[in-house]
């Protein structure tokens, strides 16, 4: 689908009436086309305005408590592993928001402007690292000795779509961990589970997680904590489908850190 075709569909996309097949095609285009994405966001905002104008109905008395309880249950108890995971995901959320890492034009593989976009991505990454420091303070394992590294995942030719971002914390004294966020992967069940591996220069690989389910955007978050493994040197990130084919690949820059 090219930009002209997509823009013709955007009004119906904004009001949610596109057939599933067309909606998926539009969403795929929006993953890499910032111009159409901007227009989609603006039309979507206009459509949401329509809903916000409805005369509001009174809320059931206890609904708020039920919402809080469900989020509380999903996020996990304070101090639990699940809460640790969500806290880490907050940090990644900030990274993605600030840096625009992941599914931008850099990943579209448009060679003609790649150098310019790569330079832009590098500037964004540097800004993300700087702003990352504040967010990292909420992490319970944050310590002065911990180094924080970021990376991007790009699609290989085998798949040609999707992207992702990686956060890695490496500490000589505390637990290391890695978080991988992916998006735009095909939802074809025959390709799952996807497996994530970290590789060092010697070719040694260690598993960083498995993706068994994808959300409607073809996205997922994976978190893994390493108790006895030092992640220093494990800078290559590989996402493989069930057949072992690498579908996303990226490199973590361990030379710089905000810590």
């Amino acid at each position, binding site marked *: 689908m090219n930009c002209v075709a997509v823009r013709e569909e955007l009004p119906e996309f904004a009001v949610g009436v596109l057939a599933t097949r067309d909606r998926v095609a539009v969403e795929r285009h929006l993953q890499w086309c910032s111009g159409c994405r901007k227009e989609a966001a*603006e039309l979507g*905002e206009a459509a949401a305005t329509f809903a916000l104008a409805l005369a*509001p109905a009174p*809320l059931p008395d206890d609904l708020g408590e039920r919402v809080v309880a469900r989020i509380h249950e*999903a*996020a996990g108890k304070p101090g639990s592993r699940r809460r640790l995971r969500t806290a880490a995901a907050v940090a990644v959320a900030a990274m993605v*928001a600030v840096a625009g890492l992941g599914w931008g034009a850099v990943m579209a593989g448009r060679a003609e402007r790649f150098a310019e976009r790569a330079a832009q991505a590098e500037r964004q990454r540097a800004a993300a690292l700087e702003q990352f420091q504040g967010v990292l303070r909420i992490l319970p394992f944050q310590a002065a000795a911990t180094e924080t590294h970021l990376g991007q995942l790009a699609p290989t030719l085998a798949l040609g779509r999707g992207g992702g971002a990686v956060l890695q914390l490496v500490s000589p004294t505390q637990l290391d961990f890695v978080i991988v966020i992916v998006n735009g992967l095909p939802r074809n069940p025959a390709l799952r589970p996807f497996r994530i591996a970290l590789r060092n220069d010697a070719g040694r690989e260690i598993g960083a997680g498995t993706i068994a389910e994808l959300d409607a955007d073809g996205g997922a978050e994976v978190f893994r904590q390493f108790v006895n493994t030092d992640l220093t040197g494990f800078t290559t990130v590989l996402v493989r489908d069930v057949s072992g084919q690498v579908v996303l690949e990226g490199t973590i820059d361990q030379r710089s850190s905000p810590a």
Partner: protein
Amino acid sequence: MNGRTEGPLFAREEQQLVEGLLAGNEDAVRTLYARFARPIFTMGLRLLGSAEAAEELTQDVFLTAWRKAARFDSARGRLSTWLMTIAHNLAVDRLRRETGVTRPTLVLVDEVPEVAGASEEEPLIERDAAIRALESLSRAERTLLARAYFGGLTAREIAEADGIPLGTVKTRLRTALIKVRRANQGKERP
């Protein structure tokens, strides 16, 4: 954590609220609920037709927002838009699943939001601005948007029902949305 439940939010405040939601922060959840639960619940009532279904939708919207919070970017759009889009998608998906058809059931055209009567006993933060934005539309344009947004009619279905060309319907939909967008641009968040 910003816990304000009144007044417009800065982009940074919206980002902080979503980060709080992602972390399971109770204050953030309560603030989001106080600001956005009513329009979400209202949309559920209109689209799904029962309080029970609307309650389930409201819970599902906040849970989905929690799951997707890592992908919210305040630089790309407003929090209210993001949540209402989640709500609309979930409601439409539910209707399609339950009815086995590709679009939700129609609501009455009389339920199109009116531009008058903004005063409520408990005014919503976003609603007055939304109503002012819709003042830029004619009655026919509001009806057209309602048939698509609340009724789930595609442009082709509207064109066939009204006996007008498909391209005309698409153009009118786009024009109506752009009018609202421009009206919104005059009331951007701080």
